[in-house]
């Protein structure tokens, strides 16, 4: 990190167009260290697109996205060293075992794949008993947990999460909540895309609603009641194209 006072995630005037279709118009958002922002919005509001730009998987048409002082478009490798992305794709090779999957991504990212570390990460998501089994036989929830173990192992500074609670059972959800709280306490920043207004929002410090290609609302979570949130959500997402 270049400057400790800078926010870990800093987005200004971001626009993304696919051909003639404008998905993001003018998005600005900041997330400080130790802070989590929940990003809400209707289908097609551009939540995933914003996440992909932050993860360096897509380039903005205009504006900048900066992570830990590094520009996502111009210095993607520096950004990639610092972000962990959990999206819909699990990044799993079904014919490798759980442990082999973790080792592969760890070594490919330039890290050391110590057996003890791999076991520890698997233990964290309660997959250690299945470490040597091929992932093809896993349930969807187990695959989901394995993809979280990959991120746990990478120790990123910024977590980019797209519906991280989807497909997890109650135990899994509880573990993820605790992990995310600990991640924040350790000085990390979280951007979390979600559709539900349920208890998983408790991780978030702020709630932002994406509508009409911009951040339509950005408020501290404690100041918004559940009813009010539902009303605001309906209000702002109706403007969405």
């Amino acid at each position, binding site marked *: 990190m270049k400057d400790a006072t800078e926010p870990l995630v800093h987005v200004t005037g971001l626009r993304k167009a*696919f*051909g*003639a279709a404008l998905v993001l118009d003018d998005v600005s958002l900041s997330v400080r260290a130790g802070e989590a922002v929940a990003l809400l919005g209707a289908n097609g509001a551009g939540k995933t697109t914003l996440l992909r730009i932050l993860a360096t998987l897509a*380039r903005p048409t205009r504006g900048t996205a900066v992570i830990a002082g590094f520009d996502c478009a111009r210095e993607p490798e520096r950004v990639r060293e610092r972000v962990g992305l959990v999206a819909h794709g699990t990044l799993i090779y079904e014919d490798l075992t759980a442990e082999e999957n973790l080792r592969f991504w760890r070594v490919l990212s330039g890290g050391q794949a110590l057996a003890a570390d791999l076991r520890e990460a698997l233990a964290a998501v309660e997959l250690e008993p299945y470490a040597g089994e091929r992932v093809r036989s896993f349930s969807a929830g187990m695959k989901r947990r394995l993809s979280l173990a990959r991120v746990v192992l990478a120790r990123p500074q910024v977590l980019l999460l797209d519906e991280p609670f989807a497909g997890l059972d109650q135990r899994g959800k509880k573990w993820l909540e605790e992990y995310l709280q600990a991640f924040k306490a350790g000085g990390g920043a979280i951007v979390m895309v979600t559709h539900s207004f349920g208890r998983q929002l408790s991780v978030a410090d702020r709630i932002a609603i994406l509508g009409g290609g911009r951040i339509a609302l950005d408020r501290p979570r404690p100041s918004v009641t559940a009813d009010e949130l539902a009303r605001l959500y309906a209000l702002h997402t109706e403007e969405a194209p």
Partner: protein
Amino acid sequence: MWFSTGSRRLTRVLGWLAALGLLAGLVLALGVAPREVSQGDVQRIMYLHVPSILTAYLAFAIVLVASLGYLVSRRQAWDRWAGSAAEIGTLFTGLTLASGSLWGKPTWGTWYLMLRGMIDEAERRAQFAAVLGIVAALNIPLVHFSVLWWRTLHQPPTLLRPVPAALAGIFRFTLGVNWVAFTLLFAYLLAKRIRVGRLSEEGLP
């Protein structure tokens, strides 16, 4: 890029010069240059053939440079140059098809343009086309030598041996005029094509 608003006049001048050059070249090739002794009138095809090849090579060189330029700078203008040069170059390689002497190369442009046609997203198209353009352009000498060596074992290359050494002055002059005319025509078409490409990109919302 230097083909911008002010240079439309230059383009027009290029067009007229090319037309004049082609006319002069045609008169020289069919009327003035004498009948070649050993090959007869068939030899006159050379005045069409050699300038076409040289122009095609020029096009490939531009594709190579523009492709490298794109990869380094990521500016769409370079991609427009590469794509346009490939299109016009393909036109000229088409002229050499008849004798089949550039075996393997006439398909070159079509093949490159096919990839361009199959990718809708402008940025990705430019990136892939640049890689393909570099591979293809650097491959040309390899293709040239391999085809030459392959053939020499079966039959000596008769029709296309680069410009015969003992070429009389009038042959050489005719060839030179045609070459200049073809290059001017190429430059004119390229300028037009780049302009069309730019307008179609900027004109749309």
